């Protein structure tokens, strides 16, 4: 038998399984029409599939006899026996564990007694024990007390939550008013101070202006006096000239 085309083997197998759609099946059939090796391969796989079905039917034919053998074998067992077997090993296991535990404890007691130290001073032992208990319990007691206090506080807070909220709101409101008042007073003081400084600056400016005006007036006065003197001198000169000229005119 010639080898089928390697690229067609999967398609032939799918064809035998009925896994190809119509178009794929048609394409394969066209190939099979022209390829003897693939056609023989497809025929062989189909016969193999039929043989498998036939083998399954043969196995099916013997199935009844197998079922009968199973049912016959079941006569020797029962669920109850199984339950019993499941329970008793557990009980046995518990008993074994219990006996082992008793033996271990007994051995521990015996060894403990054999190796125990001599009797000690009872008072000393009591004092040591008390100190040990106090030392060991103190942190735990503290922790317990703290936890209890926390719990009480939490419960108290939870119970008075509304009142606390109102009180806090009142307090906040009062604080805000006080702050506003103080802020306003402080603001007024700052404004007065600023105003006083401003007035002082204006006064200083005015004083300086007055001084400058006074200086200017002095200069003007000096200029005026100087001008007056010069005018008087000029007039005297003119008068003198006039006096000299008058007799000549009379002649």
């Amino acid at each position, binding site marked *: 038998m010639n080898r089928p085309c390697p690229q067609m083997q999967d398609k032939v197998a799918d064809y035998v399984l009925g896994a190809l759609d119509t178009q794929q099946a048609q394409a394969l059939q066209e190939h099979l029409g022209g390829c003897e090796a693939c056609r023989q391969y497809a025929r062989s796989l189909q016969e193999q599939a039929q043989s498998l079905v036939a083998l399954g039917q043969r196995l099916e034919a013997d*199935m009844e006899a197998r079922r009968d053998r199973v*049912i016959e074998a079941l006569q020797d067992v029962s*669920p109850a026996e199984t339950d019993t077997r499941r329970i008793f090993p557990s009980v046995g296991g518990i008993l074994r564990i219990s006996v082992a535990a008793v033996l271990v404890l007994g051995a521990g007691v015996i060894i403990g007694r054999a190796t125990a130290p001599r009797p000690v001073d009872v008072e000393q032992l009591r004092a040591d024990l008390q100190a040990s208990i106090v030392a060991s319990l103190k942190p735990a007691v503290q922790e317990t007390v703290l936890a209890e206090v926390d719990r009480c506080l939490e419960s108290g807070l939870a119970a008075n939550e509304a009142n606390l909220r109102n009180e806090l709101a009142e307090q906040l409101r009062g604080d805000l008013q006080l702050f506003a008042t103080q802020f306003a007073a402080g603001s007024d003081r700052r404004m007065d101070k600023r105003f006083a400084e401003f007035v002082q600056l204006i006064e200083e400016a005015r004083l300086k202006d007055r001084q400058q005006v006074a200086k200017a007036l002095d200069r003007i006065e000096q200029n005026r006096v100087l001008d007056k003197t010069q005018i008087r001198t000029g007039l005297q000169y003119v008068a003198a000239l006039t006096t000299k000229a008058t007799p000549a005119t009379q002649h």
Partner: protein
Amino acid sequence: MDERSDKELAWASHQGDRTAYAVLVQRHYKPVFLVCLGVLGNVHDAEDVAQEAMIKGFERVCQLRDGSQFGGWIVAIARNLSINLLRKRKTAAKAPVPDRPLEPQRAKSGHEGLQQAVARLPRDLRLPLVMYYFDGQDVKTVAEKLAISTSGVYLRLRTAIKELHEILTAQGDTP
């Protein structure tokens, strides 16, 4: 024919009613046997393990919470027993044993040769092949029972029939 449901029969079996359990065996033996055959690849081993599974099912039926699930439950027992048997054999051999015999078997004709060729397939190919051809289950059902996709089943079946053909050709027992 007993008309009782699997749930009623399982409950009656739990009470020790062998007749009720025999009805369950009648209903569910075939898938149990075929899953054993699919895993083990050998009819005699499959028969032994299927019987063991059925007996265990009777013994442990009290552990089954929902009697209506008896079918899937007993098949799962059979499959686990089959896999355990394979493991025991591998351990006993103290060496990895392939799913298929190393030495080619002597050529046999007819159903015996085909059965032998099926036994030589790898387990993951054999089980879907047995379910599809021997039990007549469709691809979708096989996929659900093996918890794989339908395309996965088709792939396994395609590979299985191709390998089966090669084995049979090598045996000189082409159908």
